[in-house]
């Protein structure tokens, strides 16, 4: 009898120890998450520390011969105005990151806020109209072509960073909003939200304690993904002459200006283009790792086995 009792591994003990995987663990545990994170940190270092490390002022012309080949004095060579490409590359990442970061943050706050509101009112007996209204606004905004919208805004308000942030935020807000609304909808119809309502909890409690923690991962993954697109979009605007203006060393603008000389000084195009690509690829890898974390199957594995 004693033996029989020994192999009884504590009757009805909790399944298995081991936490629900956290966001950070999910990122560092997957290969794509690790690669993305490392890459993003490198790019961040270049963008933040680059301006301090640049050997020459980025906009100073005539530092060397125009379109000179790489040398010890000018690591990446010089561009058509004799500016140091390496210095321009090191100082030109700021706006490529900052404008998308501000724009996507704004889009997530506005679009996400409306999305949560819509998703929540969807499940309430007498608030369905509010959800329909918000969804209507989203769909209307989604109907407008992104580039055209940006063009109109920039034509109206002029090329400045605030205009760019506003334009990109306006384009992304309804897209983020739709995703957040969907995520909210599936959480709001859960019984634990009903249970909170039956306890008579306030709307604020339900939103912050029951709802937000359960859509946070979705929102973060969506943020990372939007950043990928925003980086490319903002670089494209600069390339088209709608964003940063000469003589700024913005990467998008650098690509646009140097592209006619690509055969003589290819690094003037390649360096900023690689910078943009690395930034968006790293963000995309992070977004992918986060989306995998959202996949219920992977969560289940991590949780119970």
């Amino acid at each position, binding site marked *: 009898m004693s033996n029989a009792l020994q192999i009884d591994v504590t009757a009805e003990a909790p399944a298995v120890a081991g936490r629900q995987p956290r966001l950070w663990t999910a990122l560092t545990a997957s290969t794509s998450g690790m690669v993305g994170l490392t890459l993003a940190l490198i790019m961040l270092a270049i963008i933040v520390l680059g301006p301090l490390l640049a050997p020459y002022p980025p906009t100073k012309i005539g530092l060397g011969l125009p379109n000179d080949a790489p040398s010890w004095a000018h690591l990446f060579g010089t561009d058509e105005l004799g500016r140091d490409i390496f210095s321009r590359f090191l100082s030109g990442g700021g706006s490529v990151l900052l404008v998308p970061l501000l724009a996507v943050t704004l889009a997530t706050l506005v679009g996400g806020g409306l999305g949560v509101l819509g998703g929540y009112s969807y499940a309430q007996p007498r608030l369905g109209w509010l959800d329909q209204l918000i969804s209507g606004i989203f769909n209307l905004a989604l109907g407008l072509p992104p580039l055209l919208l940006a063009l109109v805004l920039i034509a109206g308000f002029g090329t400045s960073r605030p205009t760019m942030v506003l334009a990109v935020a306006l384009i992304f807000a309804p897209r983020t909003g739709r995703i957040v609304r969907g995520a909210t909808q599936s959480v709001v119809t859960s*019984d*634990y939200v009903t249970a909170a309502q*039956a306890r008579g909890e306030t709307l604020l409690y339900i939103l912050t304690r029951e709802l937000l923690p359960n859509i946070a991962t979705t929102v973060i993954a969506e943020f990372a993904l939007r950043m990928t697109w925003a980086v490319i979009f903002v670089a494209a605007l600069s390339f088209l002459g709608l964003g940063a203006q000469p003589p700024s060393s913005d990467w998008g603008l650098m690509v646009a200006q140097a592209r006619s000389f690509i055969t003589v000084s290819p690094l003037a195009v390649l360096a900023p283009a690689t910078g943009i690509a690395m930034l968006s690829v790293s963000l995309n890898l992070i977004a992918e790792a986060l989306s995998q974390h959202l996949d219920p199957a992977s969560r289940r594995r991590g949780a119970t086995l």
Partner: protein
Amino acid sequence: MGAWMTIDTASTMAASLPDTATQDGAALLIRGLTLAYVMPDNSLNEVVRDVDLTLRRGEILGLVGESGCGKSTIALAAIGYRSPDIQVLGGEAWLGKDDLLSLPRAALRAIWGRRVAFVAQQAALALNPSLQIGQLLADPIKRHLGLEGEALRRYQIELLQRVEIADPEIALKRYVFQFSGGQQQRLAIAIALSCRPEVLVLDEPTTGLDATTQAHISTLLETLVREDGVSVIYVSHDLALLHAIADRIAVMYAGQIVEVGDAHEVVQAPRHPYTRALMLAAPSIETPGMVSGIPGRPPLSTVRGACAYAARCPESRDACVRQDIALEPYGRHLVRCLRAGELPPGAAALAPLKAVPVGDVVLSVRDLVCHYVRTIAPTVRGVSLDVRQGETIGIIGESGSGKSTFLRAIAGLLPPTSGTVEFRGQPLAGAVSSRPRAQRGDLQLIFQNPDSSLNPRQTVGSILSRPMRLFRDRLDRAQEHAELERLLDGVQLPRAVLQRYPAELSGGQKQRIAIARAFAANPAVLLCDEITSALDVSVQASILEILVRLSNERGVATVFVSHDLAVIRMLARTTLVMRDGAVVEAGPTADIFTTPRHEYTRTLLAAVHDLPRSEVSSP
């Protein structure tokens, strides 16, 4: 005794054993089947071990056990299906001269649908939603029988008539979603039977359907397979259902067969302690009594060198955990238990129900009418109810009868269109937000699905302490902790779960937490909405035990909604039968079950399969 202790399987024993029929008489012969799950880290977890099963021609073989015992896994592997996360470690499955486990995929395609057919649990998910029924039905018939044109059409209509689909010609043009759950399952059966297979595998074909639909479909299935002479493997967790329709029953535990034999003998004279425990966990209508759960949990993989059930078995001895136990013949069945010879066969009767002292009326509902949408017919049409302190009221009815809506309206989640709800003589506001705090704490709702009723991002500790802080007098930290521990003791969970997240708990454990959360508010009335319908029978039994004990201790009244009549028979003093939003019959539970007056109640009762219980009691 010594002879039993050699490691062995039924296949090495003489052909005189009841299960080892000759290959000629067998429709499907499974030998030494051993299966493992491939885990995320590519390690193997053995879940089925050395299973020998003989499916005789024309018989229905029931495979029964708790979730995770490997019954569905065996059923699928037996027809040669290999899902990517399952690895076959050994064994054979002979269909005539073909071993389905060693045939290449291409050869299996010619067999699946033609000689072997499968019906999955949820037809709605198993049938392609973008094809018309006609197309769904045509594919296997064209492919395997070669029928075309008018002959095909006539055959399809004949098939639909056999499974009792009304207006078969119109049905052929419709899509899966246009049918009810029961009809969908009948369509899946029609497709499975379309090519007159030799072997039909049914994986919980009626689970999740209403009791009456369930009874209708299982009866229909039985008729059809007997007519066609199909041999059937019927996987189910419902021992009573299998007893009613199967010829033989195999009871599975931890990937092994622990008892197999003639259906009546297995149920009326069970010899394995696990089979007996399963019967004690099943509530009964004819011989009502208190169920008892099986303590502990089944292992997640097979157990070697010991009896897998020993850890939970009240009859286990030292010898049980020192060796593999063989299946030994007793009468017309085989049992895998060292002590099967010593212990008298038969399951004990359920413990008698205790009468509960009942107090004054606490909750009184009058003529409640509820609409989801004003313009269409009400979901609840004038229901009245009086609940006394300590009393349990049962509400039975099929899905769509309005019973859950009625509960939500009492809880204030759906303000009623008309009618009144009074609590201790005080009228309650329609919307929960307009009710004072004390009243909100007094009525507590428990939901059907514990996966969805606990916030996955909160620890058990914070889930339980929230209602305590809301509805109880201010407790300091030490008092709160003591109270949490008392709640956990009440639902028989270790204190360590306070720091866990719901995803780390099993379904039964989550439902215990949901019950503890309701009691944390110190309620006067519990509103239980199908709270055991998503659980295994043994887990259901422990949950019901806990609920009954806690309610009695604290004198809490309960309104228990369920479509399971046997559960209501056991719990409720008074029963309401609801149909289409109205009460068709109400009265003392015993009267409703013994002398039902309404035609509908009789229909519901007729659909119930009950387990016969011998009066032989184990010592």
